[in-house]
C-alpha cells in the first residue's frame, strides 16, 4: 500500500529515464547508502568490519565486474580471479617502483593494467562462446597463477613469494583503522556502482545486452561484436583489477598468489549466478549471500545443535556449512534461475498492487 507510484507523473523523458523512477525506491536507496556511510561506522565493532563488511564491499565490486561481462554481455569467464591478481600485483609494482606514487592512483592504474590484460584474454571470445570460452578464460587463470608464483620480478624478488603493503594513505588521510578502510572501500564501491549502472542503461550497455541476447541481429543493426565484447572484457577486468588491488592492499595487507586462485573465480561466478545475472543490484545480493552465509552458518549451527542437546564439533560445523551452502545454491537455481535480484523485483511488482489482487 505504501509502495506505489500513484500520483507520480512523468512529464519528461529525463524523469522517466532516472535510475530509480519510483520515488519510494529513490528514497530507500538513498537512505541505505546514507546509513552505510554514517550509521554503520557507529554501530559495528572491529571484528564485523574485518570479517564481513570489508570483504563484502570488495567482493561486491568484483562481482559487479563479473556481472558486466557475464550478466550483461553474456561472455562467460572463469578467469575473474586472474584479473584480480593482475590488478593487485600491477598496483603493487606501481606503488613500490615509482617514488611518491599515491595509493589511489596505484590502485586505479592496477585496474587499467587489468583492463589491457582482459582485452588480450578476451580475444578468444570473438571466435568461441559458452563452455569453450570458459576454457579459454580458465587458461588466463592458470597462466597468471603460474606467472605470479614463478616470475619473481612481479613480487619484487620477495623471497617468500608473499608481498605486503603498509601505510595506506589517501591525500594525507591515513587508512589504518578498520573503520577507515571500510569507508574507503565503500566510497569506491558506491562510485563504481553508479558508473556501472550508467554504462548499462546507456548505449554501451544496450550493445552488450544485444550481443548477449541475439548476436546476429545485433550485427545487422550495426553493432560490431569485436568492439562490444572487448569493451565488456576491458570494463569488467578494470573493475576486477581495482577490486583485486583493494583486496590485497586494504583487506589482506600482505598476500600471495593463492589469494586469487581458481576458487576465487568460481566464487565470483556463483555470486553473479545467485545474485542475478544482468542486474547491478544482483551483484550486491550475490556478494552478501556468499560472504555472509558461511559466517552465519558457522555461528548458527552450533547454537542450533545446542538447542537440541547436540554437540557439533568444529569439523562437523564446517562440513555442514559446505553441505547446506551447496544445497541452498541448488535450491536457488531451481526455484529462481534468474537469481535473488529477480525474486526481489517480483516481490516489488506484487507489492505495487498489494493488497488488491489486480
Amino acid at each position, binding site marked *: 500500500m505504501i509502495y506505489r507510484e500513484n500520483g507520480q507523473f512523468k512529464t519528461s*523523458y*529525463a524523469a522517466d*529515464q532516472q535510475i530509480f523512477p519510483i520515488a519510494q525506491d529513490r528514497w530507500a536507496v538513498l537512505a541505505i547508502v546514507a546509513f552505510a556511510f554514517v550509521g554503520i561506522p557507529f554501530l559495528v565493532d572491529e571484528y564485523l568490519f574485518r570479517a564481513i563488511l570489508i570483504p563484502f564491499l570488495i567482493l561486491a565490486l568484483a562481482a559487479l565486474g563479473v556481472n558486466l561481462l557475464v550478466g550483461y554481455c553474456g561472455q562467460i569467464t572463469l578467469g575473474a580471479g586472474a584479473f584480480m591478481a593482475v590488478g593487485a600485483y600491477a598496483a603493487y609494482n606501481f606503488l613500490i617502483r615509482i617514488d611518491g606514487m599515491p595509493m589511489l592512483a596505484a590502485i586505479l592504474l592496477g585496474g587499467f593494467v587489468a583492463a589491457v590484460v582482459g582485452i588480450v584474454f578476451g580475444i578468444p571470445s570473438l571466435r568461441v562462446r559458452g563452455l569453450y570460452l570458459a576454457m579459454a578464460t580458465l587458461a588466463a587463470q592458470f597462466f597468471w597463477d603460474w606467472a605470479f608464483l614463478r616470475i619473481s620480478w612481479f613480487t619484487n624478488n620477495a623471497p617468500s613469494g608473499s608481498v605486503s603493503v603498509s601505510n595506506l594513505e589517501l591525500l594525507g588521510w591515513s587508512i589504518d583503522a578498520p573503520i577507515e578502510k571500510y569507508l574507503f572501500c565503500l566510497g569506491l564501491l558506491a562510485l563504481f556502482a553508479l*558508473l*556501472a549502472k*550508467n*554504462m548499462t542503461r*546507456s*548505449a*554501451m550497455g*544496450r*550493445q552488450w*545486452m*544485444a550481443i*548477449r*541476447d*541475439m548476436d*546476429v*541481429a*545485433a*550485427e*545487422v*543493426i*550495426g*553493432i*560490431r561484436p569485436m568492439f562490444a565484447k572487448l*569493451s565488456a572484457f576491458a*570494463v569488467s577486468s578494470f573493475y576486477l583489477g581495482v577490486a583485486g588491488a583493494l583486496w590485497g592492499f586494504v583487506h589482506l595487507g600482505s598476500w600471495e598468489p593463492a589469494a586469487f586462485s581458481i576458487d576465487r573465480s568460481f566464487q565470483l561466478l556463483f555470486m553473479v549466478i545467485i545474485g542475478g545475472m*544482468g542486474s547491478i543490484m544482483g551483484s550486491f545480493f550475490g556478494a552478501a549471500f556468499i560472504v555472509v552465509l558461511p559466517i552465519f552458518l558457522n555461528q548458527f549451527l552450533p547454537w542450533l545443535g545446542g538447542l537440541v542437546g547436540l554437540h557439533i564439533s568444529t569439523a562437523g560445523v564446517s562440513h555442514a556449512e559446505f553441505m547446506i551452502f551447496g544445497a541452498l545454491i541448488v535450491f536457488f537455481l531451481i526455484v529462481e534461475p534468474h537469481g535473488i535480484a529477480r525474486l526481489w523485483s517480483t516481490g516489488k511488482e506484487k507489492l505495487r498492487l498489494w493488497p488488491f489482487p489486480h
Partner: protein
Amino acid sequence: MREIGDVILDLRGISLSFGGVKALTDISFDVREHEVRAIIGPNGAGKSSMLNVINGVYRPQQGEVILRGDHFKRMDPYRAAKAGIARTFQSLALFKGMSVIDNIMTGRNLKMKANLFQQAVWWGMAAREELAHRAKVEEIIDFLEIQHIRKTPVGRLPYGLQKRVDLGRALAMEPQILLLDEPMAGMNVEEKQDMSRFILDVNDQFGTTIVLIEHDMGVVMDLSDRVVVLDYGRKIGDGSPDEVRTNPEVIKAYLGASH
C-alpha cells in the same frame, strides 16, 4: 505520393554455396528507389539467403552487390548498416532480456556518438543523446501503436507484437532500404492487415525502399510493385505481380508440373 526512382540496389550474378550445397546460382535483379520489391518462392528457394547476401551476413562466392553505384564484393553487416540497410527476421531475433524501448533504442546505436566515459558519468553529450534518441524512439512507438507495451520485456509479448517491435527496431535506423523477411508469418488476418498497413505507411511516408519476402500471395500481389521469383536457388521469374502470376515457370514451381 511516392515516385519510383532509379536503381538503388543492384545484384549481379550472385552465387552462394555452403560446402557442396548451392543456395543461390547466378542471380541478378535490381531494386529501384522507393519501390516495394517482393522475393517469393517455395520453401528452400534461397529467399532468406538472398537477404543475408544483401546485408552482408553471408558472403557470396561470386557476384557483387552494387549499392547506389558503390560496388561491394564483400559486404559486411556493419557496412551495410552504415549504408542504410535495415532488416527484420523470419524467426524472431529480438533482444529478449530488454524492454521494447531498449530494443528500439539499440537500433539507433550507430547514431549515438558519446564515448564510454561520457556514458559512465551520464553527463553532457551522453545524457543529451539519450533524451534526443528517446524522443525519436517514442515517435516510432507511436507510429507502430505499441505505446502500452513500451516498458515490457519483449520476451513476454505475444508473437504478433514481437514482430512489430522487430519492425520498430529496424525503423529506428532510419533506413533507406528495409529488408523484411516474412513479416507476416504466423499471423492472423487482423495482424496481417495491421502489418500490411505499417509496411505501406513506411514506404509512403518515409519513402523507404522495401525488399519483402512473404508467402501469403494475396499480400505479395497487393503490396509489391515488382516481384522476383526464386526456385532451388535460381531466378525463374521477374516482373510486375501480374506478369509473374501468369508466368508458366512460376506456376510450375508452385503447383508442380504434370509429366
